[in-house]
């Protein structure tokens, strides 16, 4: 019996990340709606959106979405990758997570996040500026609250 190896960052750089086919469809739709040139852009926003929710995401469905390399999804610099992985691990409170664990967590966050973003898009009247305005609204409010004594 082999014990699973803890994750190594270098593995994640080369690894493929996917989400469900449905979430991937929303990702493409959002990319088009916001006139974003790359698939990773809505995906990264989706991860962030999902990570802002403290409850752990659950994943339903198979992962048949198109893959994105880790270095693309999280960024070319090692520190970018390290940050996103750290946030995901921190959120999951899971020490000794394996590469597979990280991939599953990304798939779940991506899926949950992109659904939430699509809902925001629709709620904002399908207007890109309004979308970003709404998106910035929550962290801005949180910041403001934090600065209050």
């Amino acid at each position, binding site marked *: 019996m082999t014990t699973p190896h*803890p*994750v*190594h*960052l270098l593995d994640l750089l080369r690894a493929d990340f996917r989400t469900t086919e449905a979430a991937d469809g929303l990702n493409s739709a959002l990319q088009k709606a*916001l*006139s*974003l*040139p*790359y698939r*990773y*852009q*809505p995906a*990264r*926003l989706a*991860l*962030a*959106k999902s*990570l*802002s929710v*403290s409850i752990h995401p659950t994943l339903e469905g198979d992962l048949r979405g198109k893959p994105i390399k880790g270095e693309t999804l999280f*960024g070319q610099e*090692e*520190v970018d990758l*390290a*940050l996103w*992985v*750290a*946030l995901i*691990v*921190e*959120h999951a*409170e899971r*020490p*000794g997570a394996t590469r597979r664990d990280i991939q599953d967590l990304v798939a779940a966050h991506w899926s949950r996040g992109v659904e939430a973003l699509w809902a925001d898009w629709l709620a904002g009247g399908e207007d*890109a*500026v309004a979308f*970003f*305005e709404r*998106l*910035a609204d*929550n*962290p*801005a409010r*949180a*910041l403001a609250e*934090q600065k209050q004594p």
Partner: protein
Amino acid sequence: MTGALELLSVYGGSERVAAAFAAHDLAPDLARALLAARASLFGAGNRRRLFTQFDAILGQEQADGTVAQEGVQTTSESSPGSPQAAQLRGVKMRNWKVFARAEFDFPRLSTDRPVCLIGGKNGYGKTSFLEAILFGLYGQRALLDVDRTLRPDAAGPASARATPYRQLIERAFHEPARARGEEVAAVHLAFDTSDGPLEIERRWYFRADGRSSPEDEVLTLWAGDDLDAVPVPEGEDVQLFYQEEIARRLMPASVAPFFLFDGEQVKRLAERKMADQVRLGIESVLGLHAWRDTISDLRDYARDRGLSDGRAEDYARLSTTADTLEAERENTMAAIVDLEAQLSPLRARRDSLLADIGALGGGTFASMQDLHERRHSLGQQRQHLQAELAQAASHAFALALVGQPLLGRTARTLRRESSQAVAGEGFSADALEALLSAIDADDPPLDAAEREAVHERVRRGWARLANATPSEGRLHHYLDVRLHNRMLERLDSAPAAVAGIQDKVAVLRRLETELATLEAAIVERGTRQQSDQDLREDLRTVSEGIEALEQRRRTLDQTLGRLKSQEAQIAEKLDARRFGRQSDEPAQRRAEIALGVARALEQVIKTVTPTCFESFALAVTRAYKALSHKAVVDRVGIDPDGAVTLVDRQGRDVRNFDLSAGESQIFAMALIAAVADTARCPMPLVIDTPLGRLDPDHRERILEFFTTQPRQTILLSQPDEVNGRYLAQIQHRIAARYRLDHEGGAGGLGGSVAHEGYFPTVAA
């Protein structure tokens, strides 16, 4: 006819009339003299005497341009103003129609009681009374003027119409008197005029066979407080002089039908076509036929005085040419007026278009281009900003989006694990060896066994300490601790990215607003550009229309100029003949002058007539409104042909709908009232059977109207006509009452007599 010039001045405006005379080089005194001559010799059988008078007048004109006075009674001397106000004080009739002898005395006019009421059944003498006044005043002329007004079909040479008057007079001779062998019928009329009392008597003498001739008629006038016979200038025909005096002191025969009339006469007026009725009314009140007759007489005179055929033809041809030229000139001027009427709205349209185009502003194209360039530039800015936003959003901002709780927690974990890692690094093999060497070097030195035992114990303890901080125990053990500091920097600075995104969003918002405004401006400018094109197209069309009309206007102006010049040449030729410069022989020169004067008179009448119709229309309007119970008519319009329009407030001619027989009659009454009202001589009104077949409401109005005039009004009524409520209506305005009764003689040879009083009053 005396007074015709004054009448013309009253209606046509004295200044306008004077200007018309001046424009045609015609002295008013000359016209007056000719009219007076013709009036004074009217009905004198042949026109020898008239032409002799013309000889004198025109001879003087020919000699020095002044009007001959000798032998001609001109009104300018004896009639300083208009006819005098007058009232009838008495009527006496002897052997006149149904009356063997009758006397009526009427009280002095008091304006609150202007009415004298005479009642009589049919055949008892109402019409005899009316005709006594009419024929007493005017004799044969009354019949002719009445004829002319109401029976134009009776037109013909004056001499041919003399016979009916004789027959009428012979029939008017009271039959019982004839049977008794009497020879005289007489009417005596007493008037108060503003010049004092005036009494007029006309007697007709009849021969044994009952015939009468012009020589058997005698007119006498007495005037002044002592009622002296009016003196006749030496050499003057007494009868004709007196006849003129009546016209001068009272009223001309031509307007008499509008003061002395009966219901039948009104009915005849009402049944005529309106245009004829009105034209005849106005011509009558103006005595226009007197002018026309004079013109005709002047032409006859010219022929009679032997103007050679050649010269007459020459003159006639020139006259015809002048008439043709004048008609052409008038047509041309009418065409110019018409053109101007078309041009005026077109010019207004052109001005309005120019103003509109000006308001759109120039340089539309350049502005449009600027707007498009600005839109392009803003569009690019937006695209750029959107790209920046997307880039920022998927990097620093994405991190911020994770939210402070997780970011903060992660940072705390990393910091803790960093210090643990630093602590773990202290238990290295080198550090152990350094510690052991330091123990060996301490005093006192240890023996080998002791040293071995101490080393063993230190190594075990070291190992325990080192094992107490394993990297596997950290949450983020997969991270190289050297990354921690950079990660913490990112985590700490992440929230600042929110403000950056918000700034970009704000800029994008402004850009979008600006773009929307710009888009609206472009659309609006586009519309205006289209408007501008449309306006310019309209302007082009309108300008072309104006140009075409102005071209026609220039042509017409040239035609007008040519016509005027030709007219001037013809006028010069006509003047040369008129003032006798063509003929050597005096008689022929006078004849030429006569033709010229006739022509000038024609022109004067033509010039003044429209104004006369206008002022007359105003008077008819006033009267019609007072008389008609239908308040629909706002204005009566009368054009120079006598065509009448009864215009309502909406400007429609109510005659296009319907005018009842009663309304026609009211119109006739209004016409009569207008003549009586407009004529500046407050003469008594004598109305026989005034209410005729009017409906009750109109009866009240007619009565009201005619009994409240500031003039004496004598009503001749049937027993059931002015009675009951109608009598009650005017009761308080009646100054005198008479009743006509019949006193029968044997064999139906009775006659009517007048008694003071009236019919028994029937219930109102």
